[in-house]
């Protein structure tokens, strides 16, 4: 009876995984040598650092050579791993050129600053100097990361909560839509940073005013995309649910919101991006701590090595949070796999 033209579940999932792996394999195939690139480039970078004379006057440390040694060790480890453990092979070979590129970029940076002095100090320090700056200030940086994270998450989650509530209300109830939509449309596009004076007035504590600004910034995109997601749910889903005995709460929470989730996640991503921006502005204007404040403070003393240091940390900080949200989305929207590409 069930001799229908459909692949059983196990096969279906294997197929999608298999395809990705196959793509990986195809680009790496015949490039066994490629995994040797990272350690090779690391050795070149070490030689450049050791042999080329310095032209920027600068106290030499062991941090940059140490970093290169770690990268060399890591590269060699991966060479051994892909040789010894077959399942890791495709992946390691796929990422080897990228890894080598990162090391090459460090080497070029070292060359054009410390070695050749094409870029003038104090504005363009070399990697060694930036590492030294981070090393010297690590307790302060750690504290800044903690405070930034706390402010960001507080503001973001308040903003998301408000955005989801407003979005669902405006998307679902006609009365809320009539009053809420014009308000959102007029007030929402105001850049949150323009509200700094107001936020500082309304909240005695700088942390609260910063969190309020971030929440405001996040709330708008989350509201709009939740609303449009809910408004665009196919009516047939509601018809089906209603003929199965669903009442209003079921229709909202078990039909409208799940169906709107892909759109809601776009709002969450937009909100996250704008929350980063607002965080840095809030920290430089009112809040007297955190990564943004550290950046401006160090710039004030012309300590550009530390400015770059904190920029590196921000890059890691923000991209980690972004990656985390991607993971959450992949987990929540797993049912979409195969329907759309990402």
């Amino acid at each position, binding site marked *: 009876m069930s001799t229908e033209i*459909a692949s059983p579940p196990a096969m279906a999932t294997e197929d999608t995984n298999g395809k990705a792996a196959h793509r990986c394999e195809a680009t790496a195939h015949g490039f066994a040598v490629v995994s040797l690139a990272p350690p090779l480039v690391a050795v070149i970078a070490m030689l450049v650092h050791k042999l080329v004379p310095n032209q920027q006057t600068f106290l030499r440390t062991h941090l940059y050579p140490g970093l290169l040694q770690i990268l060399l060790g890591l590269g060699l480890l991966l060479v051994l791993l892909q040789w010894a453990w077959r399942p890791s092979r495709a992946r390691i070979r796929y990422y080897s050129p990228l890894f080598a590129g990162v090391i090459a970029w460090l080497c070029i940076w070292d060359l054009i600053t410390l070695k050749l002095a094409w870029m003038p100090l104090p504005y363009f320090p070399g990697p060694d100097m930036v590492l030294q700056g981070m090393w010297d200030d690590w307790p302060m940086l750690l504290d800044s990361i903690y405070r930034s994270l706390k402010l960001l998450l507080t503001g973001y989650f308040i903003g998301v909560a408000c955005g989801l509530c407003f979005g669902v209300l405006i998307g679902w109830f006609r009365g809320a839509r009539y009053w809420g939509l014009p308000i959102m449309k007029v007030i929402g596009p105001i850049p949150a940073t323009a509200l700094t004076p107001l936020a500082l007035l309304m909240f005695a504590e700088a942390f609260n005013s910063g969190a309020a600004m971030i929440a405001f910034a996040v709330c708008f995109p989350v509201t709009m995309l939740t609303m449009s997601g809910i408004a665009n749910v196919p009516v047939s*889903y509601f018809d089906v649910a*209603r*003929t*199965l005995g*669903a009442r209003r709460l079921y*229709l909202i929470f078990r039909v409208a919101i799940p169906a709107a*989730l892909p759109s809601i996640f776009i709002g969450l991503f937009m909100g996250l991006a704008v929350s980063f921006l607002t965080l840095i502005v809030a920290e430089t204007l009112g809040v007297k701590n955190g990564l943004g404040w550290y950046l401006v403070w160090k710039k004030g003393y012309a300590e550009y090595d530390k400015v770059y240091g904190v920029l590196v940390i921000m890059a890691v900080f923000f991209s980690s949070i972004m990656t985390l949200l991607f993971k959450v989305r992949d987990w929540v929207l797993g*049912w979409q796999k*195969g329907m759309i590409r990402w």
Partner: protein
Amino acid sequence: MAEGDDPVVSMNSLRAAQDASSLTAREVRKSFVSPSGSPVLALDGLSLSVRAGEMVALIGPSGCGKSTLLRLIAGLDTPTSGELLVGKERIAGPSATRGLMFQEPNLFPWLSVRRNIQTGLVARGVLRKHRHDVEEFMRLVGLEGFADVYPHQLSGGMAQRAALARALVNHPRVLLLDEPLGALDQFTRMRMQDEVLRIWETRRATMVLVTHDIDEAIYMSDRIAIMSPRPGRVERVIDVDLDRPRKRSSPRFLELRATILELLHFAGQVENGSQ
């Protein structure tokens, strides 16, 4: 979104199930405003009665209001005038006692097959009590082993089976089928017809089947209601006096087919299977 105000257990009185699951439409009119703003009369004084446990096919030219009638019986829309009864009770909104199956499976893509089928039980808050029904219905439609698969991984026929199981899980007394097999290929469709018949024979629900396929109507139903072009009315009701299981090639089958074709010619239109 209007809310269904017909509680699921409103008809818990122990009246004869026979009586409670018959359908009556009296002088039903339904007009609505088209997207261009002009009023459209979809149904004009349609009358039809379906006995409890009977399978009636609705057939007619495109746009004659067949789907409109099903939506009215399901309680998703309200008639402009006229009366629609289930048993002796007026239809006042959607109810879990009246299942509806669309041409598209309309499975919720975010739920696995099992959880799609459970929808009716969860919505009514009786999942705990009837959990075993879910397994039973998955077996009934041949989806055992596919419980944790997501809809996008299913073929058209399997998705439609899942939709059928979902519509059955509340044990509806009336099952409304809006061209449920229309999007399937010929072979899958004929196999599904047998399965729907098997389910109908074991469950003895009242069924109304909207179809474009004259063979399907003759093969499956007790009676065939032929509708006029818009505004829709029941033009003629034909008894299908064939013993079950039916043979698609029996002389009487072909004779009925010719009669219906003639009637549809007589109505001024030839059904060509397009929507």
